[in-house]
C-alpha cells in the first residue's frame, strides 16, 4: 500500500492542472499500426496509425462507428481476438525506469503482469463488464490478488473503500451486487477498478455512451478530477466529439481506419482543417445558438475491405476534387514542428 501512496504523491505536481503537457516525453508511442480482420476479403480496420500519448494528458480519439477506434484500443493493449490480427506496427510503452517495451511483443504471462498495473481499460458497457453473481468486494479482491497474492483481507477492503470513495460512491456499495446499482454507479465502479493498481495509462472506450446527460456529466467531472489528482494519462475514445472538445488536451479524428487529423483540442475548435472534422463539428447543434437549418454529413463510411487508392472520405466530401479519388494521402503538417496534421489533398501543395 505504501508504494502506491508514494507513487500517487510523486505524481502529483503542483502545476499538474495547468501544465498537463508534453514536457516528459511520450509514455506510449504507437508506430505504423495496421490491424486487419480475416474473412472472405480482408478488412483493413486500422491503417498505418501512429500517435503518441504523453504523461498526464487526456488524448481524445473521435470517429463514427466502424471507423476502427475500438479496434485500435484493443490493439494497443494487445487484446484483439481472431479474426482480428495485428499485421504490423509497434506500441511502445515507456516503463517507470525509462526503458521501453513493445506491448505487442509481450507473451501471455507478461501481459497479465502488464495489464492493470501499467495500462488499464474502461469498457463501454459497464453492465457486461461486471460479474453478476458476486458482490463488488469479491470482484475487487480478485483484481488485487491477481497482482499481489499476499495482500491481506483487511488491506483489500481498505483499498476498495478508498477507491469507491474516490469515485464518489458510498461505502456500503462494497457489499452490493452489480444488479443493485444504476448504470452510472456501475460505470463509477468500473473506473474505480481500473485504478486499483494505479496504472499510468487508462484507456476509456466510450465510457459514458449508454448514460444520460446528467450522469454523463458527473462521470466526466469525476474522470477529470481523478486525472488531475493522480496524473495518469487517458486515451478517451468516443463518437461524440463535443465531449472531447471539453475534456481532451489533444484530439485525433479517425475516419475509415486512418487518423485524418491530429491537433491540440483548442486548434480543432478554432481551426479544424479536414472537411470530415468540420462536418462532425457542424453536426453538433448549439444549445443556445440561433435556431437554423442544420445538416449532418450525407452518405455512409466506405467498406474497408475494398481497396481505396485515394481519400476514403472523397464520396462524402463537399470539397472533393479530381485528385482526391486516386492519389494516396499524406500527412500535411500545419507548420514545421507543429503537432497539427491533416490528411487531405486540399492542403497539399504538391497535388
Amino acid at each position, binding site marked *: 500500500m505504501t508504494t502506491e501512496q508514494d507513487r500517487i504523491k510523486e505524481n502529483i505536481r503542483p502545476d499538474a492542472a495547468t501544465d498537463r503537457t508534453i514536457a516528459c516525453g511520450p509514455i506510449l508511442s504507437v508506430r505504423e499500426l495496421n490491424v486487419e480482420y480475416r474473412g472472405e476479403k480482408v478488412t483493413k480496420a486500422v491503417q498505418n496509425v501512429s500517435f503518441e500519448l504523453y504523461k498526464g494528458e487526456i488524448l481524445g480519439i473521435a470517429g463514427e462507428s466502424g471507423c476502427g477506434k475500438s479496434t485500435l484500443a484493443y490493439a494497443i493493449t494487445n487484446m484483439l481476438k481472431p479474426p482480428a490480427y495485428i499485421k504490423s506496427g509497434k506500441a511502445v510503452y515507456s516503463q517507470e525506469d525509462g526503458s521501453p517495451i513493445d506491448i505487442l511483443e509481450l507473451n501471455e504471462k507478461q501481459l497479465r503482469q502488464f495489464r492493470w498495473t501499467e495500462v488499464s481499460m474502461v469498457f463501454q458497457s459497464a453492465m457486461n463488464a461486471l460479474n453478476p453473481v458476486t458482490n463488488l468486494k469479491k470482484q475487487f479482491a480478485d483484481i488485487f490478488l491477481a497482482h499481489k497474492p499476499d495482500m491481506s483481507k483487511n488491506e483489500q477492503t481498505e483499498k476498495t473503500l478508498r477507491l469507491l470513495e474516490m469515485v464518489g460512491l458510498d461505502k456500503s456499495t462494497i457489499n452490493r451486487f452489480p444488479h443493485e446499482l444504476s448504470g452510472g454507479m456501475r460505470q463509477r465502479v468500473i473506473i474505480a477498478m481500473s485504478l486499483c493498481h494505479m496504472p499510468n495509462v487508462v484507456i476509456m472506450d466510450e465510457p459514458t455512451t449508454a448514460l444520460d446527460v446528467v450522469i454523463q456529466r458527473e462521470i466526466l*467531472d469525476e474522470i477529470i478530477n481523478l486525472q488531475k489528482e493522480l496524473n495518469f494519462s487517458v486515451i478517451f475514445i468516443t*463518437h*461524440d*466529439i*463535443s465531449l472531447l472538445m*471539453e475534456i481532451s488536451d489533444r484530439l485525433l479524428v479517425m475516419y475509415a481506419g486512418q487518423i485524418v487529423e491530429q491537433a491540440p483540442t483548442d486548434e480543432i475548435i478554432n481551426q479544424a482543417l479536414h472537411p470530415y472534422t468540420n462536418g462532425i463539428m457542424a453536426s453538433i447543434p*448549439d444549445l*443556445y445558438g440561433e435556431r437554423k437549418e442544420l445538416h*449532418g454529413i450525407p452518405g455512409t463510411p466506405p467498406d474497408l475491405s475494398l481497396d481505396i487508392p485515394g481519400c476514403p472520405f472523397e464520396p462524402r466530401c463537399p470539397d472533393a476534387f479530381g485528385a482526391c479519388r486516386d492519389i494516396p494521402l499524406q500527412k500535411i503538417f500545419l507548420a514545421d514542428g507543429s503537432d497539427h496534421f491533416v490528411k487531405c489533398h486540399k492542403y497539399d501543395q504538391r497535388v
Partner: protein
Amino acid sequence: MHTTEAQNSEIPLMEVKDLTVEFKQRHGRNLRAVNKASFGLYAGKTLALVGESGSGKSTIVKTLGKLIKIDGGSVALAGKPVKNYRHTFEYRQQVQLVFQDPFASLNPVHTVFHHLARPLLLHGKADKKNVRDKVEELLEKVKLTPAAELANKYPHELSGGQRQRVAIARAIAPNPKVLLADEPVSMLDVSIRLEILNLLDELRQKENLAILYVTHDLTTARHFSSSIIVMHKGDIVESGDTDAIVLAPGHPYTQLLLNSSPKKNLTKEELGKERSERLAGKVSAAMKQSLYTNKGCNFIDRCPYAKEVCTAAPGYFTVGSDNTHKAKCWLYEPNSRQ
C-alpha cells in the same frame, strides 16, 4: 417554422389528461411510473419530452402506443376517448411508433420490402398488385434511394441510419396522424443524427404529423421542437415553449439538465469554472436525508434550493410572464416570490 402562436386556440389532436401508469411490485406499493401527466399533441407540431433514464418517458410512449394499459386519467384522439384493449387496430392506424434501437426493431430474416409491405397491406394502403410501387414510394419519402435496390436488402446490409429510415418508413406507411418517436437518434452516430431529425421534421411539415419526440438531449430538442415538457421521476416538472424552457429554465431539474449538456464554443477556463460551480452546488447528503419524506417534491434530494416547504408536494406555477410556461416547483409559488 417553429412558431407556437395559435396553439392555445387550436384543439389538440391527441389530448392526454392526468395520465397515470403504475407497475406492480413484488413488495410494497405499486411503482408509479407516470404521475398525472397532462399534455397535448398538435397536428404539424413537435413536442419534445425530455428527461433522464428512469423518468418515465418511454412508459408514456408505450402507453400512448397502447402497449401498456392506462391506470388512471384519460387519453383522447381527435376528441374520442381511447380505451384499454379496444379498437387497437384502428387506433394504430392513426398512431405509430419509432423505437430507439434500429438494430432490434427490424426483423433480421426479412427484407426491407417485407417490413414495409406488411403495414401497407394490413391497413389497406396498397393491394397485392401495386404493393411494390407503394413500397418504393415510401422508401423515396424517407430518402432511401435507389428504392428498388434497397427494398431487397436485409437489415444487416444496412447502416444504422438507413435502418432507422426503414423504421420511420414503416411507421408512416399507414398514413398516421401521430408519430411517437422514442429516442430515435440516440443510438446513431453524431454525423447521421441531424439527417434523421431533418427527415422527421420534413415529414412533420409535409404530412402534417403530430410528433412526440422523446429524448434526453435538450440540444436537439431545442432545434426540432416547438414546445418541451420535462419529466423527472414520473412527474412533468416543467412545460412550455421551447425557447422559454432552454433560455429561461424554471425548475431546478431543467437547469441541471441544461448545465449537463455539452456546450460548444467554451474555452478551457470557462469549462473549468463551470465544473467547480457544479461541484460547489452539490447539496450535502445530511440535508437531503433530513428533508426527504417521500411525500413532497421528488427532486428534493438533488435540489440545491430545497427548503422546508418542499416537503409538501408542489403544484404547477407559472414561470415568468408567459402563462404557458409552468413549473412544478415551490420557487414559483406567487406568495413566496419576493
